[in-house]
């Protein structure tokens, strides 16, 4: 099975961040607290299916586009 990314999460599903596929995007995500090893959960999907809101480490809610979410690999 190929590696899943945050953009493929189901609503309410939890996963742990493993790595990033895009170097530039990973910088922004890291600064926003999405660190490898951190748990994320898909909380909400905006009415038109994009962007999505993920809960990062139980601390806070981050909204990002599917495009960006697909650069975060999970396990």
């Amino acid at each position, binding site marked *: 099975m190929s590696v899943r990314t945050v953009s493929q999460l189901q609503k309410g599903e939890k996963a742990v961040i493993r790595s990033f596929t895009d*170097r*530039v*995007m*990973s*910088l*922004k*995500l*890291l*600064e*926003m*607290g999405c*660190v*490898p090893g951190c748990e994320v959960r898909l*909380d*909400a*999907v*905006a*009415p*038109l*299916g*994009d*962007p999505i*809101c993920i*809960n990062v*480490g*139980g*601390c*806070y*809610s*981050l*909204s*990002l*586009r599917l*495009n*960006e979410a697909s650069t975060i690999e999970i396990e």
Partner: protein
Amino acid sequence: MKQENIKIALVGNPNAGKSTLFNALTGLRQKTGNFPGVTVEKKSGTFRLAGSNGSSDRDVTVVDLPGTYSVYPKSADEGVVMDILANPKHPDYPAAVVVVVDASNLQRNLLLFTEISDLGIPTILALNMLDVAASMKLTVNAVQLAMQLNVPVVKINARTSEGIPNLQQAIRQVVEQTEKPEQKYFYVPKGNEPALIEEVKELHKLDNDYVALQYVCQHDNFSFLAQPVRAKLDSLIEKYEFDETGFLADETIARYKTIKPIVEKSVKSEGATEQPLWTRKLDKILLHPLWGYVTFALILMVIFQAIFAWASYPMDWLDENTASFISWVKEVLPKGVLNDLITDGVLAGIGGVIIFIPQIAILFGLVSVLEESGYMARVMVIMDKVMRRFGLNGRSVVPLISGVACAVPAIMTTRSISSRHERLLTILVTPIMSCSARLPIYSILIALIIPSTKVFGIFNMQGLVLFGLYFLGLAGALASAWILSLFIKRTEPGYFMLEMPTYKVPRWGHVGFMMYDSVKSFVLEAGKVILAISIVLWVLSSYGPGDHMEVAEQQAVSAMPQAPEEEVAAAVASARLESSYAGNFGRFIEPVIRPLGYDWKIGIALLASFAAREVFVGTMATIYSISGDSEDVLTVKERLVKEKNDHGGPMYTPAVCYSLLIFYVFAMMCMSTIAVVYRETHGWKWPLIQLGYLMVLAYVSAFSVYQLMS
């Protein structure tokens, strides 16, 4: 001993509460709001630091800075922070930095803290949002944290001003310590970074490793570095084969590794942490695929209802009272030129806009509630995809919504949009959103042509038409963005990443202050312009070239020998106005505006309103009170109803009114907006393109409407 002014800076993640703390410290009223990216430029204020142990009081200058997630800026507003902190020669370079952190999300907030601390500026950690942390069942041990980080840690609540004296105490101790403690870095450079750092330190006479690293990574952003210096740094980067992106990722991960055990030791949580219950519940509805949009639409409806229906009571009251006040002044003052100037010129002009105070206050109050509650961030999320279709970004929602109040601050908030392309588009279309200065024009014209009947039992017809005009503005803005995006090439891909704040109850005092402040600046700013313009206008309309006015008067009298005195008086006044200087101006541009259905009187008001739109109604009031028979003072609306066109029919037919409404929806008639676009885009190119584009759009739309309707 002379005590110089101490400078401190407030730094922290977006929405951590820096501006709220700034207000608590200085007593000023810097704008706050519950979403990331409210503050987009530095703001200074002062407070007095009480002396202790016999030393005297000192004045402290506090600089409030835009929020940022790291020292590496991602958008125009964030750049300000490092431009100051990496440059000890900067006039705002602080003696100490207060890093404001959101205690409910300590790990991520500490990332920035460790970076700032590594820059070698004395720091103090202000633990804010402890109440939010508590509602997430988190407790932070400040003593433990202070020991781990080796800095003073102060618990505060910026919203209620708790802990402010302790913070001041800590500031005092830090700025007064005589010897600088030895620098302990949170990040230790690896590989050939140390060699590179040494060379940069040598070259620029720096004593801090991390500042040197910033020179390497960010020299293109530092406005204080000259071009040759930047080129030299580029060559060093090549020499040491420094890979910037790789380094930044490694650095950030290394920092989190250092931070993690510190957070584990100092934060206790009972069970799994979750966002506060209320935030989770509200988001279920407000981000719901269906209810999300429904509630958004309802909220907008309520706003329009409020602006139109609720505001009408105080407005009617004001309208009548200004009219009777003016007639009272007219009677009390001795008759003559001065009386006419004051009553027909100044008071008529100012009275014309004063009645809109309730609407302005309600509008600003409601926008401020949206911002303070945290709902604005949700609107950005549910609108992002729609915005993207038009070449904009979810973040463009903030300028577009606050553009409904005023385009000038709205255009400044675009600084938090990281993509230059999306930011430029947003700047170009924000002035199409109907700002509060258009409200007077809309209200008066709508009141003339739309009956105040109820639709579906609840909505006022006039309110619905107003809604339609705002909607037209929004649609025009989006369509224009789309058209412009075809011409302006995109240079980098846009992205959208937004921290969702927890919902907070708006602070009513703050909302009240926003209302008060907007009314004050509306009355003062608009008042100043209107005062000046109405005086000029009055002079220009009361005097004419040579004896033209007298000739016109005699002609008018002899043209209607049998008419009643009243009508003659009105005709005379009108004829005099027409041959005055102002009348000549109006006549001069009449051929251009005729196709839109306007006569020369409207032309005068149109010209005057180039300074600011709200002048339009005031000018109309002035013109019509000069041209009307001068005995009784009418409200502005009554004057417009009475106005006749060349064929003796009413001047303000629906076609003319709609044409004017549409014209003002699109026209960019505001000097301040042009000035702010010039400032934000660094040149005349974009403001001129924008002005031209919007004028053509306004003219063509008004022309089509008038021709179709008449």
